[in-house]
């Protein structure tokens, strides 16, 4: 069975830039995709020659894993173009060497999981704030939110993304679970909810602002059309 292009792209859209919290497909980081029988080759590109190699490594490795999860894909090759550490990253991911062994003597153990963990928490906070903001716009107060359960929120895409991030952190996603919790799963009370959301909104500004900066740099670098600014 030859894998279908749309299915392959869909699998790639599950890969996020950990810092920017957006799919690499939306960010236009996928430069090319070729399918030949059971072999899929993807090349990725980033906004600058010096984008942080740890995050670059994560994306290349995640992309390869996503490709291999597609039915019919027997071999997956992912290469990162135009990066100062392209050789190390490409060799490391496709040779299954892992990050630390791809950069001998240049890292202090494989701490990429820890780094990923930090950004999953940030992403969780940001997605929660987005959901809360839309609920507040609909007329609820922050105090209402502190009393709400997951089952009481409307199941739109903002909600779905929030649930996804919650489950990544292993936080309860059952309908009875409290809606507003911290990244450790601890419930936010009415007394602290306003402050909590104020912090969360800065985290969201940061992640979204970084995505804007990076897409701007990518557009300049590759002469592609820049995306329009989204209004909140």
């Amino acid at each position, binding site marked *: 069975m030859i894998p279908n292009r749309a299915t392959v792209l869909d699998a790639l859209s599950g890969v996020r830039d950990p*810092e920017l919290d957006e799919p690499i497909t939306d960010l236009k980081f996928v430069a090319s995709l070729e399918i030949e029988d059971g072999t899929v080759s993807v090349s990725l590109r980033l*906004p*600058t*020659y*010096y984008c*942080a*190699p*740890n995050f670059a490594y994560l994306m290349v490795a995640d992309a390869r894993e996503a490709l291999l999860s597609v039915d019919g894909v027997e071999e997956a090759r992912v290469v990162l173009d135009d990066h*100062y550490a392209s050789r190390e990253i490409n060799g490391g991911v496709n040779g299954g060497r892992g*990050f*630390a062994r791809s*950069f001998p*003597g*240049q*890292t*202090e*153990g*494989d*701490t*990429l999981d820890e*780094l990923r963990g*930090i950004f999953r928490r*940030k992403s969780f906070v940001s997605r929660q704030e987005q959901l809360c903001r839309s609920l507040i716009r609909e007329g609820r107060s922050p105090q209402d939110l502190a009393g709400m359960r997951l089952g009481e929120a409307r199941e739109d895409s903002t909600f779905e993304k929030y649930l996804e991030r919650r489950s990544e952190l292993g936080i309860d996603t059952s309908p009875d679970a409290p809606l507003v919790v911290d990244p450790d799963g601890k419930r936010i009370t009415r007394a602290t909810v306003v402050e909590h959301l104020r*912090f969360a909104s*800065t*985290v969201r*500004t*940061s992640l*979204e*602002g*970084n995505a*804007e*900066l990076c897409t*701007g*740099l990518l557009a*300049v*670098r590759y002469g592609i059309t*820049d995306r329009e*600014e989204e*209004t*909140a």
Partner: protein
Amino acid sequence: MAQEKEESALYEKDGEKYYVVDGHVHFWNASPENWVEGQEEYAKGWIECFYAYHELGPPEWHWSMEKYQKYSEEDMMKDLFEEGYVDKAIFLPTNLREWYKDGFNTTEANAVLAEKYPDKFILNTTFDPREGSEGLKVFEEKVNRYGCKGVKLYTAEWMNDSKGWTLADPEAEPYLEKCMELGVTNIHVHKGPTIWPLTKDAFDVKDVDVAATNFPGLTFIIEHVGLPRIEDFCFMATQEPNVWGGLSVVLGALMHSRPRFFARVMGELLFWVGEDKLTFSSDYALWSPKWILEGFVDWDYPEGHEFDDFPRLSTEGKKKILGLNAARLYDIEVPAELQVAATA
């Protein structure tokens, strides 16, 4: 001093006069003749990376790559002081001697201009605690020779087997004590777009928190406000009175290309850090000060409720950010008519 003020092209808009300090400028040489053999790819990649940021400014301000690699003294003097309305500019060095033979933008190269135009430039130097007592001596000599009141630090820089250092390291302490002793009170720390170290988060600002608490007599100016970790910077700066933010990348990379996000980032900074602890800079020659300055003086939040909760920025606040705040840090004499009540 009085004579220099008459020469400056004072920025005046709608009857308001502004004293302008450009808080972060370079005089770099990234031309191919200066690339270290065997390191050409890195040297080229570095300046190309800068150039991409440059291109986020308005198109009419884009230079050719050739000029961007190496610009002249005349270019700099014209862009900053004749056309750019800058009254004082602060040099912050970036050595990068591994890639550039004579360095990228060194204290020594900056000193040539600073000594030629003493009324225009403030010269800073740098140190690296991993150089131990020998480095401390060299640092003191440079401060004495050039009269520096500030340093620019890169905590993520590599040295031999070390993948960076932190301001909370015991090795950093004698250096910060020396800064206190010599009156080098402005500690500019690069926490912004960078490459290294590989595994740690190079943007982590926790070490500044520790140093700021231990050295209340020093001011820590976080250049590029910790982008892309602006939230970590904000949460820290709000607790530490001696932690400030340098606005260069925020202004140059976002104000023109992403006005709505620029407004949100400015809003967050005004909320957490406040207009008394932010400094304007062009990061010249990343960008030129003229368009940034004009744009910032005219700036206000765009239409939309998403900005409702952010503090407003008054003309007074803009005057502080554009020059009066940095003037406080560097004891720059500002004519009374250009002061605002709060900082006079």
